């Protein structure tokens, strides 16, 4: 097995990978930008190296520096996590050139599946169903014609895109050109490439994805689907597995298609095949993510398979430890992404310092968090604070457990989406699994704080105000010096029932 792995990432996913390595007796090396010196991932790794400034382009995106650290620290593997260099084929190649394993698929598989247009071609050749759309990127003039052909609503998408950047939904021709320009401008600034393509917008679509795992011996299995239809700003916020909208038959069909596609590019490591599905279970290929996903834990919880550990083992050359027929679904899992953002203000990120935090605990709860008291959300990185995952014996049990866990979660110092998520777990349409990617738009009341909560907070606020400058003043410390207490217990007056 690997002796020492460098984790070319930050935040919760770096921590997730460090934990897997520790459990496999592998030493870990963290890298960090100037802004992350006091982060948990740095603290948890066996060694840590500063790799530059706070902007990703100054640190986490400079592959050659990361490889330099890996060589200096004598690492035999690099795990890229998600984002940053995880889907960068050149980086994967450079690792191998420097005799360090890139823990992920081959550079060729990344290259083939990383570009949306090439990946569509491969999917087409593998007879994977596709959404009708332009055959590749288009000029502005072609775009207008294509829009007329495909019809509205339609989507404009960046060729090099991902994570909702450079993406626009257009409902009518009069908005089309303006949206096209904004999408291209965003794509240009995000990916330095303004190529876009256009495709039909599936009505009331659900986002369904299949987790796959492959080894270097040609074996590929799927770990069933995840439903990721609850989105804001085209980004996932709540995911669950299995999908309440996917029948056994569709599940099998999608799984087999995903495995076929992966085999087409000799895929090894963890990957995700994303589909868009309408309410009648018609599904179309969207894209393949050639890396570990943010939402991998829900699949881990229903299958009992540790995806990150499997990635590391198959990358080292081990055969997959599991066969398709042995993989089963037990119970139901839900993940909420806890983010520093303001649902009441268009989910705008809310940078600041999380001065006081408390995580939920107890049965069936997993918190993959990078939080601590004093954790700073900067504008350099994603505003995700934590992934809260629960398991329940069925969907209803999982929803109730998530509600309970969210209720225990505390973050002071900056606005988060906790209140929104709290209300979502109580929403009848969510409980009834009436899901599509427009769910949040259809349930805008979830974005607003109930009046009652404001009242209760206001009362706590006025007591704080009344009790003087320091909150400490209202503390009635329950601490006892027990033996003294016993000596004077007869004389104590209590606000007791008895």
């Amino acid at each position, binding site marked *: 097995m690997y002796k020492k792995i460098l984790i070319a990432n930050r935040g919760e996913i770096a921590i997730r990978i460090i934990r897997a390595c520790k459990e496999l007796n592998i030493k870990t090396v963290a890298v960090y930008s100037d802004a992350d010196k006091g982060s948990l991932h740095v603290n948890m790794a066996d060694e840590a190296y500063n790799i530059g400034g706070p902007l990703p382009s100054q640190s986490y995106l400079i592959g050659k520096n990361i490889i330099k650290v890996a060589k200096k620290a004598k690492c035999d593997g690099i795990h890229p996590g998600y984002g940053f260099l995880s889907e960068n084929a050149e980086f994967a190649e450079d690792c191998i050139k420097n005799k360090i394993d890139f823990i992920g698929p081959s550079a060729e598989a990344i290259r083939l599946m990383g570009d949306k247009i090439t990946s569509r071609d491969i999917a087409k050749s593998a007879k994977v169903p596709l959404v009708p759309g332009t055959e590749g990127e288009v000029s502005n003039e072609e775009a207008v014609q294509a829009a007329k052909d495909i019809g509205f609503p339609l989507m404009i998408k960046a060729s090099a895109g991902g994570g909702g*950047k450079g993406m626009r939904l257009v409902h009518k021709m009069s908005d089309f050109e303006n949206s096209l320009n*904004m999408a291209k*401008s*965003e794509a240009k*600034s*995000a990916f330095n490439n303004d190529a876009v393509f256009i495709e039909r917008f599936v009505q009331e679509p659900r986002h369904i994805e299949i987790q796959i795992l492959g080894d270097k011996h040609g074996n590929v299995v799927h770990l069933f689907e995840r439903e990721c239809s609850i989105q804001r*700003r085209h980004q996932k916020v709540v995911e669950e597995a299995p999908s309440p909208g996917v029948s056994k038959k569709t599940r099998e069909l999608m799984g087999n298609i995903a495995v076929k596609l992966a085999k087409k590019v000799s895929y090894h490591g963890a990957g995700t095949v994303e589909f868009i599905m309408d309410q009648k279970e018609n599904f179309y290929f969207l894209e393949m993510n050639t890396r570990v996903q943010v939402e991998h834990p829900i699949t881990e919880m229903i299958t009992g398979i540790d995806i990150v550990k499997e990635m590391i083992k198959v990358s080292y050359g081990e055969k997959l430890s599991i066969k398709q027929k042995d993989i089963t679904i037990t119970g139901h899992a839900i993940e909420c992404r806890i983010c520093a953002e303001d649902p009441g*203000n*268009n989910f*705008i*990120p*809310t*940078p600041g310092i999380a*001065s*006081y935090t*408390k995580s939920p605990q107890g049965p069936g709860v997993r918190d993959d968090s990078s939080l601590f008291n004093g954790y700073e959300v900067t*504008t350099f990185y*994603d*505003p995700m604070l934590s992934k809260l995952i629960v398991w329940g014996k069925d969907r209803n049990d999982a929803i109730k457990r998530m509600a309970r866990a*969210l*209720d225990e*979660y*505390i*973050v*002071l*110092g*900056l*606005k*988060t*989406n*906790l*209140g*929104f*998520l*709290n209300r979502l777990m109580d929403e009848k349409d969510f409980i009834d699994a009436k899901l599509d990617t427009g769910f949040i738009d259809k349930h805008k009341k979830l974005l607003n*704080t109930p009046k009652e*909560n*404001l*009242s*209760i*907070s*206001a*009362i*706590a*606020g*006025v*007591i*704080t*105000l*009344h*009790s003087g*400058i*320091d*909150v400490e003043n*209202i*503390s*009635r*410390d*329950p601490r006892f010096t027990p033996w003294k207490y016993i000596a004077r217990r007869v004389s104590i007056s209590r*606000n007791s029932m008895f």
Partner: protein
Amino acid sequence: MKYSLKIGKEILNFNLAESGEIFNIEFNEKKYNAELIKIDSNLYSMILDGQTCTVAIKKEGKSIEIFYKGDLFSFEIPSARDKSSLENASGVDKISAPMPGRVVKVLKKVGDIIKEGEGLIVVEAMKMESELKSSIDGKVSEISVKDGDTVDLGAHLITVENDEKEDS
């Protein structure tokens, strides 16, 4: 004792009396019985009319932050000016930077006539472009930034004023 707290543009008024460890509070024409029990540095159990509410509290200077059921409420102690200025607050929409970022494009110029919901300025932060819109009908009265500027949280960007008073 009478107290006020400000949240957003709203002023909340309270009447509070202390009796032993219990606070009797009048707020929004309702009466409440509350007790606050400290658990750790910022965590409190508030017993409100016999029901337990978990709240987290942070007090810094004149601002009081309360976390309850996933939502964060920032209260401020209102100044005298706050109370009087509130009545004339309508008719002006001062747009400021919702977070540190970069101005991508100023869409309007001073004097432009604006409809409610019309886009005024495009800013980029945390890799997302957002178009900030006017919340009122009116006229652009002031612009403090230009394309490409880097702005801090809360920096003034653009102001729209309506001339209702002149019309009426």
